[in-house]
């Protein structure tokens, strides 16, 4: 992974720098011209901002490189491995930038107990589904149904909105589930406080009673968690990756349908690698946190319920916010 990143850095460095150009036979002035815009806004730049800026610069570079690569493939024979490789790297990188898919998956995994392979499967499925969505959207609508390329932007927007609505539903579902568990736990704690000498074997373990201690692997695989998992995967996967849509639309117009499809497969695999790494991190982080917080104390189930509710609320808010911004269309100035 690091070799790949270093390699990407190397490409970008060679492609940068738009040097000062001079008229033939003229000498450069050494005097600096006034620079009104960047009037030294001295402020601390965090490592996070630097990282975001780096990812942004690389994405921008890749965006152009993908277009260039497609342009050069036109009228040539061959699979276009360079394009596939570049798409793969773009996928790895694109997924490392800010994005709602990662936010959703991380928020879910951090706040809900899941087994590691569940997290990995979720990441992989979501990334691959994103590629499929882009393929269906572009090749299905433009290639088969005869839509205009411009109209796929509207279709992408609606696919994204459906994904946000789905996400809001998942958030609400998790929130309600967590709240029920939480109330159950509180009721039980009160009950125990009032009946200190009560025989413990007497109470009933109902579904929502919240008498859970640290859940076992079997307990994690409840029907509810399977629904939530599927919801999260669909919510991420239904929103097509913009890079994939771009490549596929250009591929359609340039008569490079197969090249486009291979490129998107490469992109999805790349995205999957990053998302799965993130899923592993999130699952590990949560396991560690829950191991530290408490061991099988009733307070733990209270905390877990609270964190679960927080996760649900976070997803719900994120979804509503994304949905809202998706309706605030901002056309580019005059173009």
């Amino acid at each position, binding site marked *: 992974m690091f070799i790949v990143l270093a390699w990407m850095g190397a490409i970008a460095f060679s492609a940068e720098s738009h040097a000062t150009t001079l008229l033939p036979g003229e000498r450069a002035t050494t005097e600096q011209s006034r620079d009104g815009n960047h009037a030294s806004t001295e402020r601390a730049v965090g490592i996070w901002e630097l990282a975001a800026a780096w990812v942004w610069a690389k994405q921008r570079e890749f965006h152009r490189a993908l277009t260039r690569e497609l342009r050069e493939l036109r009228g040539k024979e061959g699979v276009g491995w360079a394009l596939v490789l570049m798409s793969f790297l773009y996928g790895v990188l694109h997924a490392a930038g800010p994005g709602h898919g990662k936010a959703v998956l991380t928020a879910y995994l951090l706040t809900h107990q899941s087994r590691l392979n569940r997290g990995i499967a979720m990441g992989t499925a979501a990334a691959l589904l994103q590629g499929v969505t882009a393929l269906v959207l572009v090749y299905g609508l433009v290639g088969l149904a005869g839509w205009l390329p411009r109209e796929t932007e509207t279709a992408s927007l609606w696919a994204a909105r459906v994904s946000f609505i789905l996400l809001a539903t998942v958030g609400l579902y998790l929130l309600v589930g967590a709240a029920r568990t939480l109330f159950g736990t509180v009721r039980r704690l009160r009950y125990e406080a009032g009946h200190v000498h009560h025989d413990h074997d007497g109470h009933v373990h109902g579904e929502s009673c919240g008498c859970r201690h640290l859940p076992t692997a079997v307990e994690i695989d409840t029907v509810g968690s399977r629904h939530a998992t599927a919801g999260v995967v669909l919510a991420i996967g239904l929103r097509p990756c*913009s890079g994939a849509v771009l490549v596929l639309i250009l591929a359609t117009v340039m008569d490079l349908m197969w090249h486009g499809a291979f490129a998107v497969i490469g992109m999805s695999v790349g995205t999957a690698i990053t998302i799965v790494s993130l899923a592993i991190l*999130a699952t590990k982080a949560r396991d560690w946190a829950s191991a530290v917080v408490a061991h099988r104390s009733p307070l733990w189930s209270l905390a877990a319920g609270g964190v679960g509710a927080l996760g649900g609320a976070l997803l719900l808010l994120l979804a509503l916010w994304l949905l809202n911004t998706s309706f605030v269309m901002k056309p580019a100035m005059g173009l």
Partner: protein
Amino acid sequence: MGLQHYYRCGMAGLMLGMLLGSSSLQAHPHHWIDVFAEWQFDTKGLISGVKLRWLFDDYYSVLLVDDAVTTGEELQAILNKILSNTAKHHYFLQIEHEGGEASLGTHEQATIGVQNHRIEIEFLLPITVPLDPRHSDIVYQIAEPTYYFEMLHAEESPVIVLKDAPPSCRYRLEPPKPDAALVAYAASLGVNESGGDGLGIQFAETVTIRCE
């Protein structure tokens, strides 16, 4: 505790950063335009106009052309639309001279064409009061205000031409130098979000024309 503790805290911080930093699918800019500029000097050595050529990116060109073909619109209609819209924003060109902003006339000699499947438009902007580059530098920037489009001078040469200029004239192009915080902000803007009309100019190149 110890090293592992710090490692874990770092990881937790990273996750938090991921969450807080994640807001959108794709960052600005979404399209780009390669710009060519030909500055026209009159016989007195003053700058009387600039001929601009904009080359749109492949993707945006596809969107424009395809729309035109199926709606039966002429490319000419697209050209008119683009120019009448951008005229409201000084054609995205800002020229500073002697502490003030040069005033531009209305576009002339506008043409549209397709070059390597990319839409290309060209137009001449007269400068109402010709500028004297001998007394003070002429500094210009080209930017789409919201940075939805990135406008940079093309990488091929000649991209900036000083036509009929006295031999002592030259120019220098400075690449944009946005700070990391600003870039992080642009990166956080989704396709439907706007960072305001002042964003584009901060990612613009600065070109200085000087005659001695």
